[in-house]
């Protein structure tokens, strides 16, 4: 297990380098540049050249990349061109908001998703199962930004239970968490249900019945435990998505966060900020899959065997 961890961590280094290169290139292939956003109207060509030189944007791309990478490895993500602050400060200000929103949404979709999926599987083809499956279909097809707007209309404007937008109080988290979480609930519930139904048909489950184990104990102690393996995969892939994919929701609810920061700086072509944000998201995805693999290995002895 320890060897597996070390190997997985070492493997992260080339992945990280490749990701950083892709991020660096993509940002620069987008038409437009930050200088256009900075220059005052009527500036001369000389002023522009001077400014480009000041930010080091006149050097060859490989050189620029090496400088960025070198600084980044020392923990320096550079200075925002437009916002004129260190990128790390900007990220430090915004990341906590995204982390709280993301982890709450993930926790919500995990708990509610597994519970509804398990319920639906236990009452397969009954009215409860049909109801859950219909809700799941609705939940997974509704676009989340639209769902967010509906929620604002109902719960914030009409009923006045929660604030419309912002991130000042804990109650402001409820609607965004629900909005992001519901899509996740649908996904997790569907995977849980499908996996449980498939596993309930296996021979060893028949054997458990033959041993006289009560059905509820079979469902929760054996079948659900197996069904969690694919659920863990889904969830680990979703960690990065929730952190960055909440962009539209952060916009709808006018919340600060990594997604909002990314969109703003992308519009202004603020290279260092965009690179910094994308890198954070990439790291989140990489760590998410790593955590998923570790959790799966902890749950499945067959997997542990192949990892040695």
């Amino acid at each position, binding site marked *: 297990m320890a060897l597996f961890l070390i190997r997985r961590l070492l493997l992260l280094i080339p992945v990280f380098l490749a990701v950083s290169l892709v991020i660096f290139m993509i940002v620069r292939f987008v038409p437009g540049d930050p200088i256009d956003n900075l220059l005052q109207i009527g500036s001369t060509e000389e002023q522009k050249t001077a400014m480009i030189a000041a930010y080091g944007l006149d050097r060859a791309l490989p050189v620029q990349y090496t400088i960025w990478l070198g600084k980044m490895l020392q923990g320096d993500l550079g200075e925002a061109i437009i916002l004129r602050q260190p990128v790390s400060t900007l990220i430090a200000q915004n990341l906590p908001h995204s982390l709280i929103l993301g982890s709450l949404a993930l926790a919500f979709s995990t708990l509610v998703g597994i519970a509804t999926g398990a319920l639906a599987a236990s009452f397969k083809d009954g009215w409860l199962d049909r109801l859950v499956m219909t809700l799941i279909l609705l939940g997974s097809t509704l676009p989340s930004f639209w769902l967010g707007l509906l929620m604002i209309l109902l719960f914030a404007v009409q009923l006045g239970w929660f604030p419309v937008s912002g991130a000042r109080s804990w109650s402001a988290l409820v609607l965004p968490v629900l909005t992001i979480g519901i899509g996740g609930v649908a996904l997790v519930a569907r995977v849980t249900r499908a996996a449980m139904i498939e596993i309930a048909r*296996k*021979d*060893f489950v*028949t*054997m*458990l*019945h*033959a*041993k*006289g*184990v*009560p059905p509820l104990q079979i469902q929760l102690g*054996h079948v659900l*435990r*197996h069904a969690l393996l694919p659920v863990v995969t889904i969830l680990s892939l979703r960690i990065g998505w929730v952190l960055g994919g909440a962009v539209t929701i952060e916009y709808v609810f006018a919340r600060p966060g990594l997604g909002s920061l990314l969109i703003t700086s992308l519009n202004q072509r603020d290279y260092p900020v965009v690179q910094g944000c994308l890198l954070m998201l990439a790291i989140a995805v990489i760590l998410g899959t790593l955590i998923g693999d570790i959790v799966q290995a902890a*749950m*499945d*002895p*067959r997997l542990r*065997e192949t990892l040695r």
Partner: protein
Amino acid sequence: MALLDLSDVTVSIGALTPLDRIAFSIEAGEIIGVVGESGSGKSLTAMAVMGLLPLIGGRITSGAVRFADVELNRLPERDYRALRGRRIALISQNPMTSLDPIRRVGEQIDQVSMMHLGLGTEQARLRSVDMMRQLRIPEADVVHGNYPHQLSGGMKQRIVIAMALAADPELIVADEPTTALDVTIQAQIIQIMVEMARRKNVALMLITHDMGVVAQACDRVVVLYAGRVAETGSVERIFAAPRHPYTKSLIGCIPVEGLPPGGLKGIDGVVPGVANYPTGCRFHPRCSLAQDRCKIEAPLLRALDEGAAACHLAGDPP
């Protein structure tokens, strides 16, 4: 008083009736072989005895399964569950898939004695390891902590047998316990099962399609064909004087010494599917002795001097 008695048990799955008036009984400590080709209803009979038909959408529509004077098919599910694993245990067909792959095998044996006998974790472990030793599992205390994928097929089947024996049952239903194993260890597993059944005076319902196994291990035989009982009787009588042509053909399928190459007889044709059972005697399309009567009139299971047979021609001993 028989330990297990099936009287005219008919099983339906949806509109189909795969088991038709199955009748036989098992005495305490007796080893009985239930034989027939694939599709003759052997496994369904096992499921009916275990009360697990609902799992596959089936139910007993008429007849009764009596176990030690309790009518099982009228028993509330709760009480039936208390019997399962405790007084009636199952050894399943495929040891490769009958163990939970993410739990230690020992834990899965312990589960039975903890649940049914109320043992604590440590007592259950000691009991399981002792049982594993009796089943000649080497390094039983190490194997107790292994996962199924770390064991060979033969070892896994021993674990399943240990699971079945864990709560000292009175009846074990073994559904083709060696079909999924290598030929080299099949005999070993059968031998261990029979030995344990004899030693602990457990009745064994041994489902197999191998007449050779029956000849070695069993006291009595039930021959099933296409969801009906074809013949029952003691092993000696069945092998010496089979009354049903199907039984005769099954015995003809056992390889014997001195057989010329190509001399082994099979049975032409296959067991019909449950949706298109023939009229009359269900064996008549494959029977070399079939007469017109066999095509129309289904033969009843009639008692003979020893056992019973369902054949119009079984009246006169050959």
